[in-house]
C-alpha cells in the first residue's frame, strides 16, 4: 500500500516571536516493512538553520531555528511512503508470564533494549488504577498477543472516542476516570496497563488510512507496539481495535507522546499561541 501524506502544523502567536527553536519529528521512519520514497519538510518563515539527526530511538529529527520576526510559523511535511508489512501466519503463542520473565532476565541484547519500555515514563506514570484495569485481561498462562488483543478491544469498548475532548496535558488518571479521550490517551492507557504487568510497550506516532468507521484518520494518529521475545515488536491500534498492518504509516516511536511530539519548540516572545494541524492521507 502506498500513501501520500501532507502534515501541516501552524503556530499563530499573539505577539511577534523574535527567535524560535524547534524540533520536528515529521519524517516517516524507514524499517523493514516501510519504505519512504520521498519526504520533505518545508518551514515558513525560512529557518536560518536546519539540521537533521537521529534521536535516541532512531527517529529522524529536524531541528530548525527561525531568526526573523514572525507571528506565525508553518511547518509542512510531505511524504510518499510504501507500507508492505502484512500479517501472515499464526501468532506467536508465548504466554505473557513467559514473555515478562524473559525480558526481566535480560538474557539477550534485544531483551535488554526492550526492557527500557517496561518502566514508567513522563506521560505514563505508574498508577494502581492501571494494574486494576489490566488484571482482568492477564489470566494465567494466556498467550501474550491474545492478552494484548483483548486489552485493545476492551479499551475500544470502555473508552469513548471524543476528538478534542482532551489535550495532551490531561493526566492519565483523569482519562481512566472519565473513560474518554483521543488516540494518544488510548495509547497511553494501553501502554500503562501493559507496563503495570512489566511487559514492554512503546508509543508509535503516525497516520491511519481513512475509511468508514476509521477513527483518527486525517489527523496525527498514535498506537502501541508490544515486545514479543524472539518475535520482535507487534503493533495494535486500540482506537480502531485492529492489529496494525499495511493501513498504518509509522512516523516515530518512543516511550510515550513526549518522545515523539511531531513539533515542539521554544520561542522568545510570542505570548499565547494557538496551534492548527492539518493532515491529508491519500492512498495511491
Amino acid at each position: 500500500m502506498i500513501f501520500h501524506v501532507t502534515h501541516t502544523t501552524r503556530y499563530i502567536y499573539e505577539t511577534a516571536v523574535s527567535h524560535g527553536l524547534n524540533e520536528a519529528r515529521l519524517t516517516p521512519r524507514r524499517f523493514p516493512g516501510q519504505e519512504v520514497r520521498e519526504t520533505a519538510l518545508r518551514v515558513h518563515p525560512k529557518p536560518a538553520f536546519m539540521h537533521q539527526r537521529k534521536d535516541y530511538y532512531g527517529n529522524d529529527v529536524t531541528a530548525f531555528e527561525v531568526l526573523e520576526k514572525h507571528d506565525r510559523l508553518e511547518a509542512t511535511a510531505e511524504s510518499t511512503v510504501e507500507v508492505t508489512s502484512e500479517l501472515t501466519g499464526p501468532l506467536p503463542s508465548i504466554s505473557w508470564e513467559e514473555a515478562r520473565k524473559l525480558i526481566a532476565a535480560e538474557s539477550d541484547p534485544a531483551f535488554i533494549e526492550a526492557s527500557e519500555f517496561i518502566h514508567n515514563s513522563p506521560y505514563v506514570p505508574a498508577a494502581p488504577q492501571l494494574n486494576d484495569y489490566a488484571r482482568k485481561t492477564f489470566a494465567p498462562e494466556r498467550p501474550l498477543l491474545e492478552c494484548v488483543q483483548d486489552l485493545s478491544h476492551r479499551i475500544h469498548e470502555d473508552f469513548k472516542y471524543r476528538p478534542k475532548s482532551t489535550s495532551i496535558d490531561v493526566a492519565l488518571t483523569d482519562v481512566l476516570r472519565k473513560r474518554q479521550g483521543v488516540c494518544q490517551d488510548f495509547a497511553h492507557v494501553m501502554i500503562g496497563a501493559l507496563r503495570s504487568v512489566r511487559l514492554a510497550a512503546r508509543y508509535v506516532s503516525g497516520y491511519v488510512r481513512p475509511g468508514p468507521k476509521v477513527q483518527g484518520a486525517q489527523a496525527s494518529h498514535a498506537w502501541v507496539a508490544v515486545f514479543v521475545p524472539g518475535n520482535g515488536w507487534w503493533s495494535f491500534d486500540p482506537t480502531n481495535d485492529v492489529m496494525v498492518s499495511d493501513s498504518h504509516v509509522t512516523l516515530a516511536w518512543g516511550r510515550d507522546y513526549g518522545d515523539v511530539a511531531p513539533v515542539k519548540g521554544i520561542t522568545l516572545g510570542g505570548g499565547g499561541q494557538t496551534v492548527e494541524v492539518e493532515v491529508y492521507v491519500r492512498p495511491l
Partner: protein
Amino acid sequence: MPVKTDLDKDQLKYVPVEGHWDEALLPSGLPRRHWRKLVVEIRRMGFRHLSRRWQSGQQLIQSEGVTYNVGNLTEGSEYSWPMDPIPLVIDAKEWASIERAVIQRATLFNAILSDLYGEQRLLHQRLLPSALVFANSHFLRPCVGITPRGGVHLYTYAMDIARSPAGDWWVIADRTQAPSGMGYTLQNRLVSARTLPGVFDQYQIRQLARFYDMKRASLLALAGDQRANPSVVLLSPGPHNETYFEHSFLAGQWGFALVEGADLTVLDRCVYLRTLNGLQRVDVILRRLDDSFCDPLELRGDSLLGIPGLVQAVRSGSVAIDNALGSGLVETSAHMAFLPGLCRQLLGEELHMPSVATWWCGQEEPRRYVQEHLKELVIKPAFPRFGQHPEFPESMSAAACEGLVRRIETQPDEFVAQERVALSTVPARTETGIVPRHAVLRVYAAWDGHSFVVLPGGLTRVSTLDSSLVVSMHLGGGSKDTWVLSGSAAEAAAARRRPTDQIPIQPGAGDLPSRVGDNLFWLGRYAERVEARVRFVRALWPALSSEEDFGRAVSLETAIRLLAGFAYLSEETSAASLGEQRWSVQRTLTEMVYDPSQTSSLRWNLKELRRVAVHLKERLSSDTWRVLQQLESHFSAFAPANADQRYLGGLDLLDNVVLTLSAFSGLLMENTTRGFGWRFLEIGRRMERALQTSELLRSSLSSAAAEVEPCLQILLQIGDSSIT
C-alpha cells in the same frame, strides 16, 4: 597567660561518645599523635580565649556574607554559614589512602558514564541491571552518543566518606552532578586560619590555593585552542539556590561571569552570553544547575532555568560543560551495590575504599535480605526526587514498616537499602563547651586535563546533636575546616602556590551581562528610594513632639497635609481632634518605617535593595557588602513590637540609617569602576531621584495654594537644601 576558672576547665572537658571512633582522642583519652598540637593549643588558650578568637572568625563569615539558604525558610531568607573553629585533622599517611580512593572512584564513575552514554556494554555484559539506567530520570536520552570535550564526562567529582568504629573509612555518597561545597571549603580555611593562627603555623598544613588555580586553568584549557580569549561562565540556578553564596564566591575568585539560564542563548548551535556589547561566545560552562533543567527543548520541558538548544550546542561540540550533561545518572546509591564488579571490569582492580553496604531491591535476593533485616537498615529512594528522604524502619511503627514493605514490593526498582553507619565523632565548639559531634567528610577530585587531582582538604560536616546520625546541611548541621598534614617540610613547600603562578585576569567591562546591567539599574533605584523615604519620614518626625520647640520645622498640620498629599492619610484627618491627629500621624510614620508588608515602607524597600544586591554580590566590594549588612542589622537589632517604643526609637534608627546609607552611596560612587555597570547604576539613581522629587512636589504643593510657606520649608529640609 589567661587565668583559667573551673568553668573554663569544664567547658574544655571533652568526652567522646562510646561505641564510635573518635577523631581526636585515643580510647585512653590521650590525643592522637596528629591532634596533639591542636589539643595542646586549645587547652593553652582556654575556652574563653578560644571563644574570643572565634568571634573574629564569625565576623569574617558575617562580613563576607557567607550564607547557606535552607529550603524551608521563607523565600530569599538565608542562614549564616554554620561552622565551628576546631578543624578535622588528618595525617599524611591516612590522607594518601583517601586520595588514592577518590582518584580511583572518579576514574571509575567517568568510565561508567562513558559506557552508559555510549555503547552500554555494562548492560549487555550484565554488570549493571538495565533498570538502574532506564528507570532513572537522570538518564538523559538526548545525551546518548555525545562524546564530551576530551572524552571526559566527570570533570568534578566528590565523595562523602565516614569512619566506622573500627577506624576504616567508608564511602557513603557520591556526587557526580554538580558537587557543591568547594567554595565553602575555601571559606572555612580562611576562617579557621584566622581563628587559630598560632597552631595553624605550627602544623604543616597542605594549602588549598593550588587546587583552585588548577581548576581555573583546566576550565580555561577545556575551551581548547580554537579561540584566543576563551570565555568560561558559571551557570547558577540563581540566588534562591541553597549554595548561591559559593556560586558567586567561586565566580568572583576565578574571574568568570556568574550567569543564569536567561543570560545565555543558543544561535546555530553555539552558546552566547547576552552582554551590553551584544552576544559574546561562550566556550565553557561550569554548571551548578542540575542537568535535566539545562535545556527545555530537549530535556525537562518545564524548566524555566535552562537554555533552549543547549544540548544541540553540546552535540555540535561548540561548548564544553563541567560536568557533562547526563552525569547525574551515576549519583544514585543503588550503583554502590555493583561498584566492586564494575571496578574490576573497567579498571582491573579492587575498590580501594568500600562503599557502605548497599542492597538494590530491584533484584530478588537482595530484596529478600532487605525484608528480613528491615530494622537494621536505612531505606532510600533509588532515584530520589525532590522532597524524598531516607526512612529509618528502626524508629517506625509496625504499620509504617508494613506500608514500606508493600511499597517496596510494588515498585522494587525504586528502593535501595543501606547499612546504618556508626559515624565517628569529632570535637566541636558550642556555646556551652567542647562536645563530640558525628562527622562526614566531603572530598573533591577534579580533572586537570591528564588525570584527576585531589583537593588536599575538604568539607567536614557535623551533626547538630551528639545523638543524631544524620549529617545534613539541609537539616541545620555544622561544618569545619579539614587540615591535611604534609608528610614533610619539602612536601609542604612544593604544595605552596608559586609566585610565578598566573594571576587571574578579569574579563573586560564590555562583557557585562545584560541582566547585571538591569540589576545595577535597580540597585541604583532602590538605594535612592530608600534614601528618599528616610529623609521624608525623618523630616516629618518632629511634628509629633509635644514640646513647643523653637527649632521645630514642621507643624502637625503640615505633616498631615503632606501625608494626605501622598494618600498615606485621608484628608479628613485634619478635621479630627488633636489627639487623634497625633495618633494617626504617629501610626502612619512608624508604619512607613517598620511595616515589611507595605511597599512604601523603608523596611520593604531595604529588603528589595538587598534582594537586588544579592544578585550582584560578586560585583560589589566586600566593604560595600558589609555596609549593606549593617543597614539590615539596624532593623534586626531594633524591632520592638510596642508601638510607642517603635516611635521613641524611630528617630535614632533613622539617623543611623541615613549615615549607613551615605556610606553605601559613597562606596558605590567611589569604588565602582566607571564602566557600563556604573552608568546603569547612575541612570537608576538619577531617574529615581527625579521621580521622587517630582512626586514630593506634586503631593505637597498642588493641593492648597494658601499655605505654601511651611511646606516649602519642609521641602527644603527633605532636599537637604535649607542652607545653600
